[in-house]
């Protein structure tokens, strides 16, 4: 499983992951505060420009961002159907009421989901979990025990996926796979949990035998740096947020969600 490896030649791959996560926060806050099409639309435009400029264009249009492009319209459609109606009503069926207002809310919601999720997904694809753990523990000073424990647990995800497949085959071989899907899955999930705990126990012993948790000040083989490049990434994030919010306010479409 390639779940824990990232191509290190990607643009931004060497930036401290903490900076990349931090860079997405201002925009997310801005877009959560308002529900209007302008701020999100401008944000998406800025994101496309910035990612293309730094060379992440191919990732932007790769199948790995597909979930965003699928999920966003779905949320949009549900808002169109069930959102607060206002203005002209185009169609009504039970609880469903498609109106001018609900269409506007739907579009704004869809744009919002794209504007927040797209940079998160693209940036996360450039983050190596090991680097992320280094950043969390060294830059943010989170407790090494938890960060490294979580990181090591990632090693077991691949094994668990294989386990799940084998468990399904084994149940079929033992004559109990004719049960309903839900009962079968529940039993299988429990078995997976048992196996995962056992593997986790072995891994914990292996880690402990190599001094993990020893009462010594831990050193770091890989130094997580936080320098000018990281600050520039955060500055770009702030800039995109500022441009989007300003555009919304200037065009008069700024619309606080609770107002």
């Amino acid at each position, binding site marked *: 499983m390639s779940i824990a490896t990232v191509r290190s030649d990607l643009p931004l791959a060497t930036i401290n992951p903490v900076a990349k996560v931090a860079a997405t926060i201002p925009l997310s806050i801005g877009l959560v505060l308002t529900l209007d099409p302008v701020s999100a639309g401008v944000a998406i435009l800025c994101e496309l420009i910035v990612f293309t400029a730094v060379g992440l264009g191919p990732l932007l249009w790769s199948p790995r961002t597909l979930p965003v492009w699928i999920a966003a319209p779905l949320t949009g459609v549900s808002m169109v159907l069930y959102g607060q109606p206002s203005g002209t009503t185009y169609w009504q069926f039970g609880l469903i009421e498609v109106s001018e207002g609900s269409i506007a809310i739907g579009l704004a919601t869809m744009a919002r989901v794209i504007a927040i999720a797209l940079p998160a997904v693209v940036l996360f694809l450039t983050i190596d*979990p090991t680097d992320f753990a280094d950043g969390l523990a060294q830059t943010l000073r989170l407790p090494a025990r938890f960060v490294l424990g979580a990181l090591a647990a990632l090693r077991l995800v691949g094994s668990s996926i294989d386990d799940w497949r084998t468990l399904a085959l084994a149940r079929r071989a033992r*004559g109990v796979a004719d049960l309903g899907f839900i009962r079968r899955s529940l039993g299988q999930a429990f078995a997976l949990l048992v196996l995962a705990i056992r593997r986790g126990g072995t891994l914990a*012993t292996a*880690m402990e035998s190599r*001094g993990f948790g020893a009462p010594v000040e831990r*050193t770091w*083989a890989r130094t997580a740096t936080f320098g000018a490049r990281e600050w520039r990434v955060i500055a770009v994030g702030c800039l995109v947020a500022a441009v989007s919010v300003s555009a919304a306010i200037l065009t008069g479409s700024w619309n606080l969600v609770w107002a």
Partner: protein
Amino acid sequence: MAGGAIAASAPASIEARGWGWRHGGRRVHAVSGLDLRVEPGERVLLLGASGAGKSTLLHGLAGVLGGDDEGESLGELMVDGRPASAARGRSGLVLQDPDSQIVMARVGDDVAFGLENLGVPADEIWSRVGAALDAVGLAMPLDHSTAALSGGQRQRLALAGVLAMRPGLILLDEPTANLDPEGVYEVRDAVARVADETGATLVVIEHRVSVWLPIIDRVVVLGHGGVIADGRPDEVLVGHAAPLRAAGVWLPSDVPWHAHPSRARDIQPLMTAHRLDIARVPGVPVQRGIDLRVDSGSITAITGPNGAGKSTLALTMAGLLRPEGGRLDPGAPMAGARGNEPWRWRSRDLLTRIGTVFQHPEHQFLTGSVLAELEVGPRALKMSPAERSERIEPLLASLRLEALTAANPFTLSGGEKRRLSVATVLATRPRMLVLDEPTFGQDANTWRELARLIAGLRDEGVGVVAVTHDETFIDAVADSRFVLAVGGTAAMRDVPASDRSHGGGGSA
């Protein structure tokens, strides 16, 4: 210089004085009353029956048994004259399972992990990482993915991780039990090189004595009451051959067991593959165009290197995986199931037709007791309680599981788990038996029982397919061998050591 960089630590001594350990929640001590002294630089092979506390001793020496909340300790266990639990970093432990002891995603980071924990300065870490990888013969970039390593490479990586910490004591808990033959010698040779270069004290647990004999200079045999034999390897192995054999140790002097030729009559094809394409994950075929026939009353061994698709082929023949292409035709004895495609059969229909024993018994356990486990298949076939016990009683006896009927399958020893997983499959009397690495990690006793049992089933007319790396097993029981190669060539041939051949398959 690599050698110089790893040789800097003095070998450690071991001393146990009346040492014992009881795991929390257990009534019986795993080890008790142990007295043992190991001088610095000695290389000890630790033998004993399963349950004699070998692993517990090794974990104790590594200081990973835990504190008072995890168990109760008696007497003293010292490394270099200090309590083993306080001597962390003086010893390094390599465990059996190659899949669950890799901590990091990249090779270099994984070796560095222990050094970071011990607080070694960052500028010193990387030279020690390089030296340790050199010493175990893993010449690869530091950012190589650990997920892409073979079993033997993983175990050598674990050894490098231990070595980089410059332990005076290296502890190996069945480091090669789960490896193919190539991996076994890879790891053994790396251990020998490391021991020579560092002079570290070495304690190894392994059943396969002949593999380790060339590099050890002392054998200690543990029994339930402490050390039952201790001395030079030749003395102990000859002088205590009987108890060692009873404990399941593979003695170099043992003559390999061979099955007699098949006594099965009325041979019929059970399953025939024509130009079969196989895939573990749908859409990603690992082999194409396989021709293979499984007959009743014969044993076919599927061999080949890791990654060639041996298990995938076996599971496809077993009706568990959908063929990617080609045909899989069940023979006349399989009639009665719905349709002609085994992978579409109902799960229940498989029970009396094809039994599959998976590589890891844990994958197929479904219940909380040995007895309930054995009843799963007969219950699914709606047998009456009388019929069920008629099936199960003889299996319990022949596979030595009578005393364990109430035990939880997950708490059994490795050999007991294997015997139970075979018994559960036999309870529904399938006409064809598919076994994935049945002898992996088994001691000599379980090995012999399995070999005899499988040969006996063959005589009764069961068709057996066994994926295996175990050449001794193939020599002992297989009638024919089907060799898969990486990249898609397959060939059938008879087992050379015998003339028990009778057409096991169709391909030339």
